[in-house]
């Protein structure tokens, strides 16, 4: 399917915070209470629309365990957006954010948009990290922030789409060199032909099977 831009994402964060569940909810609109472990990296994709333009998201979901870090690091480069995920019911996953952020900043291109995500917002009774703390961390480090629930789908669309919006704006501002694929952005075949091909091309929503 034709698209105006392709954005590459990476999802990072501690083991068991719900990275794969967020991806599954976003690409397949379903929740799997017990998800298989992610080994190394796994791939997902979906088409979204921003400003009337079709944008293809290609997403690398990484394993959270430290042992895989040497493999997952190589995926930072070539990513335009990163979702940095912690679990609001586990304080230690929030405490490790600084390490994740340092790692991401060190191995990615400097314009990569980072979205901080506090996942499992449906588990309010087990909450260990206040929403304000997430907001403060994001403000301090220049990240966008959202709380999500991969289980109820709350804010999941928004998290992926808002990240894309930010990248899109940066492109408009000329911050990204879109001709350099190492930035995780690719111009689609549709781009040159303006908006005329857009109508009726909303079908890419249920990727999963690799339809777009």
């Amino acid at each position, binding site marked *: 399917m034709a698209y105006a831009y392709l954005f590459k994402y990476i999802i990072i964060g501690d083991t068991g915070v719900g990275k794969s569940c967020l991806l599954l909810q976003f690409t397949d609109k379903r929740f799997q209470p017990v998800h298989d*472990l992610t080994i190394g*990296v796994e*791939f997902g*994709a979906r088409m979204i629309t921003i400003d009337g333009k079709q944008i293809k998201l290609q997403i690398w979901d990484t394993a959270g*365990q430290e*042992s*895989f870090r040497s493999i997952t690091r190589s995926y930072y480069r070539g990513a335009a957006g990163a979702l940095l995920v912690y679990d609001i019911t586990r304080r230690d996953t929030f405490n490790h954010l600084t390490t994740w952020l340092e790692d991401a900043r060190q191995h990615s291109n400097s314009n990569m948009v980072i979205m901080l995500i506090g996942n499992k917002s449906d588990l309010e009774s087990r909450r260990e990290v206040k929403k304000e703390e997430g907001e403060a961390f994001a403000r301090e480090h220049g990240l966008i922030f959202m709380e999500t629930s991969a289980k109820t789908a709350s804010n999941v669309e928004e998290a992926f789409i808002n990240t894309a919006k930010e990248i899109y704006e940066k492109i408009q501002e000329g911050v990204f060199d879109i001709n350099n694929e190492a930035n995780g952005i690719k111009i689609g075949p549709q781009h040159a032909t303006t908006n005329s091909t857009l109508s009726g091309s909303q079908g890419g929503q249920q990727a999963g099977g*690799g339809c777009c």
Partner: protein
Amino acid sequence: CMLCLYFCSELRKHSWSGIPREVRPITWRLLSGYLPVNMERRDLVLKRKRDEYFGFIEQYYHSRTDETYKDTYRQIHIDIPRTNPLIPLFQQPAVQEVFERILFIWAIRHPASGYVQGINDLVTPFFVVFLSEFVEEDVENFDVASLPLDTQRNIEADSFWCMTKLLDGIQDNYTFAQPGIQNKVKALEELVSRIDEDIHNYFKRYEVEYLQFAFRWMNNLLMRELPLRCTIRLWDTYQAEQEGFSHFHLYVCAAFLIEWRKEILSMVDFQGLLMLLQNLPTIHWGNEEVGLLLAEAYRLKYMFADAPNHYKR
């Protein structure tokens, strides 16, 4: 002794093309090198090894909450419920506790690698096979707590030791930066470039890297790509082969990739290729498919193992 050597080579020969269910538990114990061939020593060795394992438990298992080991234990603890989540057997508390003990003891006794995700999968074939000795039909739904405690303990100890033997042969898969896996993925790429140029060039054209799909094939020994029953059949052969889990596995991976040749070459972009390669449709696979896969792997090994630029062991 000569007789033992002869017995061993005969056992390997007969096991290569699949071991009958009734004799699989004892054959696996023998092939893995856990149980001695010499009949007179078997009972003694089994008792000693089982006692040794439970000695480890007594000595070390309480340390799982210590500062040094608590991260290892926590990782294992959250991974166990995610091990084969769709098979009811592995959701039983008694079984999950067995897995936690096996993996924790193995991890702290092997600090060079420690526990790496994927190792959890490697216990399951042993556990299922040793359990099958006591189950008439459906192992995957059997209630383990209904077995006598002694039996449960023996299954646990045997699974631990056989898994340990397996991991001894592939330890560099799990040490820092996982060099064993990096090398094997490179070797796979090199092998495929010689076996099937079309697929190799197709990957190049669409910028698919072997590491993007084959990392998991090596890290989990194809267990995530095949139903458990197929893995068990596969391991009959891996244990019958010399260096089955390390060396022969490479040829199996190459044969497995080529198996999907038609599907691969029908994809029209990177995305389609990646989605296919990480969700290969093997759900209906059984002994027949695995048998064909192994035969093809054997052929590839025979044809390509001694060719120039061959992957060095």
